């Protein structure tokens, strides 16, 4: 059995699934049985685009987001098909899944800066667009996205890292945020991003960020691709981006350490999401099983390419110093990164 620390910096693909509330557990366990490195579940909600339900305030549906890391892109593709074939994910419109190719961040001892950063990916017509806004604005983001042709989106509650400029009662305040994840056509992604930037642009710093990610395979996006078409697609080298998105999974009590260490390295902000890391205890079905998953946070940071190596070094050092962090780090190109603050 590979432990978390063995694969902490060696993931090559990340599989993201969005499923109705209550289904995540079974899928995550299945993925772990099939050899996934880690599976973390977050809860979020989506909205139903019906005006009557909107008026009645009943347009929310609870969903779960499962984030699975794997050592190979091929393995991710295989797993996605297995999940579909085993019926966990078969019905139409039950959720969406996509594979996100990751950068190679395995440590190269001879020359730390020389890791092979290029990623090969099967290009799809899709991008995953991640928008982080103030708490309560998630719905507005989804509305604007719909007006610009997106099919739907999932909102996950998050926390911003503390703004050290204001102390209230001797505490750093963690602003509450909404993270909106949506999948959009490549062609529409740019105009969508423009529309969102226009709508939320402000002069207040720390308002939020927007960026998109490569998607190498999708499943369940209504009326669009299917997996068979995708398999025949040629692989290509993804164009590099000046920004990197770091997905850091960490034991909940250790989150603050990670953020402080990264801040010391010059990173300006991070978003934190509470979730649970599913542990495969081999005792599936027992009443207590579920409760011995570990509380894990995902710390999401978008950093400049130049900062990347320094921050990764710090994270590797932390990981080696104390297994209690249970770190798992994935990196990916952050495309078209921008902040909502006009000052930037």
């Amino acid at each position, binding site marked *: 059995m590979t432990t978390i620390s063995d694969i902490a910096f060696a993931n090559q693909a990340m599989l993201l699934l969005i499923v109705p*509330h209550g289904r995540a557990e079974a899928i995550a366990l299945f993925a772990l049985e099939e050899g996934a490195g880690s599976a973390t579940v977050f809860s979020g909600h989506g909205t139903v685009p019906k005006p009557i339900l909107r008026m009645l305030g*009943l347009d929310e549906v609870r969903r779960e987001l499962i984030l699975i890391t794997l050592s190979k892109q091929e393995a991710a593709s295989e797993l996605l098909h297995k999940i579909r074939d085993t019926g966990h994910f078969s019905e139409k419109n039950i959720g969406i899944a996509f594979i996100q190719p990751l950068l190679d961040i395995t440590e190269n001892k001879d020359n730390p800066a020389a890791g092979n950063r290029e990623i090969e990916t099967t290009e799809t017509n899709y991008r995953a667009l991640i928008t982080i806004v103030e708490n309560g604005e998630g719905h507005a983001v989804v509305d604007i996205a719909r007006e610009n042709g997106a099919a739907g989106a999932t909102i996950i509650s998050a926390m911003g890292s503390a703004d050290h400029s204001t102390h209230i009662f001797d505490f750093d305040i963690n602003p509450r945020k909404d993270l909106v994840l949506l999948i959009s056509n490549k062609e529409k992604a740019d105009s969508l991003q423009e529309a969102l930037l226009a709508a939320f642009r402000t002069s207040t710093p720390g308002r939020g960020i927007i960026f998109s990610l490569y998607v190498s395979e999708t499943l369940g996006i209504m009326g669009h691709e299917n997996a068979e078409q995708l398999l025949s697609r040629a692989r290509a080298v993804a164009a590099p981006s000046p920004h990197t998105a770091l997905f850091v999974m960490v034991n909940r009590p250790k989150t*603050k350490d990670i953020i402080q260490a990264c801040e010391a390295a010059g990173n300006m902000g991070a978003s934190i999401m509470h979730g*649970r890391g599913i*542990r495969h205890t081999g005792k599936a079905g027992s009443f207590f099983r579920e409760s011995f998953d570990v*509380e*894990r946070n995902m710390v999401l940071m978008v950093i400049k390419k130049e900062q990347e190596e320094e921050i990764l070094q710090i994270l590797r050092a932390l990981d080696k110093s104390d297994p209690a962090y249970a770190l798992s780090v994935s990196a990916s190109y952050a495309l078209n990164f921008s902040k909502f603050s006009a000052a930037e």
Partner: protein
Amino acid sequence: MGLFTEKLKEMGASVLPITFFVILLHFTLTPIPADDFWRFIIGAVLIIVGLGIFLVGVDLGATPIGELSGEALVKTNKITVLLLGGLLLGFIISIAEPDLHVLSVQVEQFTADIVGRWQMVLVVSIGVGVMVMVGFWRLVKGIRLRTVLWITYGLIFLLALFNSPEFHAFSFDASGSTTGAITTPFLLALAAGIAGLYEGEAEDARDRYGMVGLASAGAILAMLVQGALDSPGSYQQIDIAENIAPAYFLEPFTSSLSGVLVDSLLSIAPLALVFIVIHLGILRLKRQSVSRIMIGLFYCYFGLSLFMVGVNGGFMRVGRFIGAQLVLEHSPFLAVLAGFFLGMLTVIAEPAVHVLTDSVQKSTGGTVPRNLTLMSLAIGVAFSIVLAIIRIYVEDLMLWHILLPAYILIMILTYFTPDLFIGVAFDAGGVASGPMTATFILAFAQGAAGAHPAANILIDGFGVVALVAMSPLITIQGMGLIYKHRQRKEQQVAASEDPE
């Protein structure tokens, strides 16, 4: 519609167990008159629908208002504003709580006007306000909940020495009745709104909980102070409602309707007021958020009214009947056994219980699942009802004979329990003693007490709520200890698997 159908399914699963249990009793131990039986079924349907609507309303209305007010108060960064805000919020939600008014009318009659209705309501509300203030102060100063609880309950024990057994019952019952269906979600959200702002500091969910527990303790403290200063020497008998034959089939529902509509409005009013003040005064929310919250408050009102009509019309008579029949027709053992299951299954249908258990699941990222908290709570309440029925049979068993050792045990447990579970346990105490307990369980206990010749319907009737509020403190802390133990074991297993 997704949200609503989801809640409806959940609530069906919560209310059906008690419904089936009563049907089982109907066919075995206590055949219920046909009319009452069908009223009970109608009541159950109303309760399921009412709870579903109410809980959607809590998500949309009560919770956001609580979180926003907590946030707004903290962000002023002025300790005086925060503390005064806490005092005021605690005071107004308590003074509008219908259950407290019901109890204070009973106490007024019982003490022959020495403790007047409004006097008691005011005293309790001030107590709640002060303790909410203390709760706020604790949160921003980072003082551990157990420290505050030790001091508070130390004071309670001390004051209890200067009070009569009757006042012990009033005080502990008052604590249960101040934390009603609306108050509890609001207080939970208020604390979550504050704790959530600096969660990065502590990085776990422990500080969110405990506010409801402190508010309940405030009510006890205030009543004990009142009793110590001005204790009535003698008590009068009052009439406890009996099962009077209704004039027509739906009468129990229609006759309670107007009272319920007013009561629910009273419960919602402070929240609406708080919302208007913070919206106009501080936050200036977007139009869409405002209308969402308003719709949420309306659902709270509508759902709570349906729920209460269902409980009052369908459940109360059956509760009283079953209680009486069990004592009259069956052995004490069977009565205690039935009480055990009745208590266990009734608390699952308590509205605020779902708000708390959902909140725990959410704030721990799903690692403390909803059902685990729910089950510990249900087992606790089951033992409460067992104790309440034993009190009916055993004449000399005073309330404090149970409460004193139990609370000493509870205080000792807080030394070992992880902070998160201390908070959840004390909140659960307030949550479990909601409208379902105040009507169905109380009616059951009064029915049983009325049927037993040696029992004093008043002494044994009062104090049930106190017992319901007490047991979850033990069982949930127990769950916390088991959780801690298991977690440590799992971690050892995980560590031994690790080659490093």
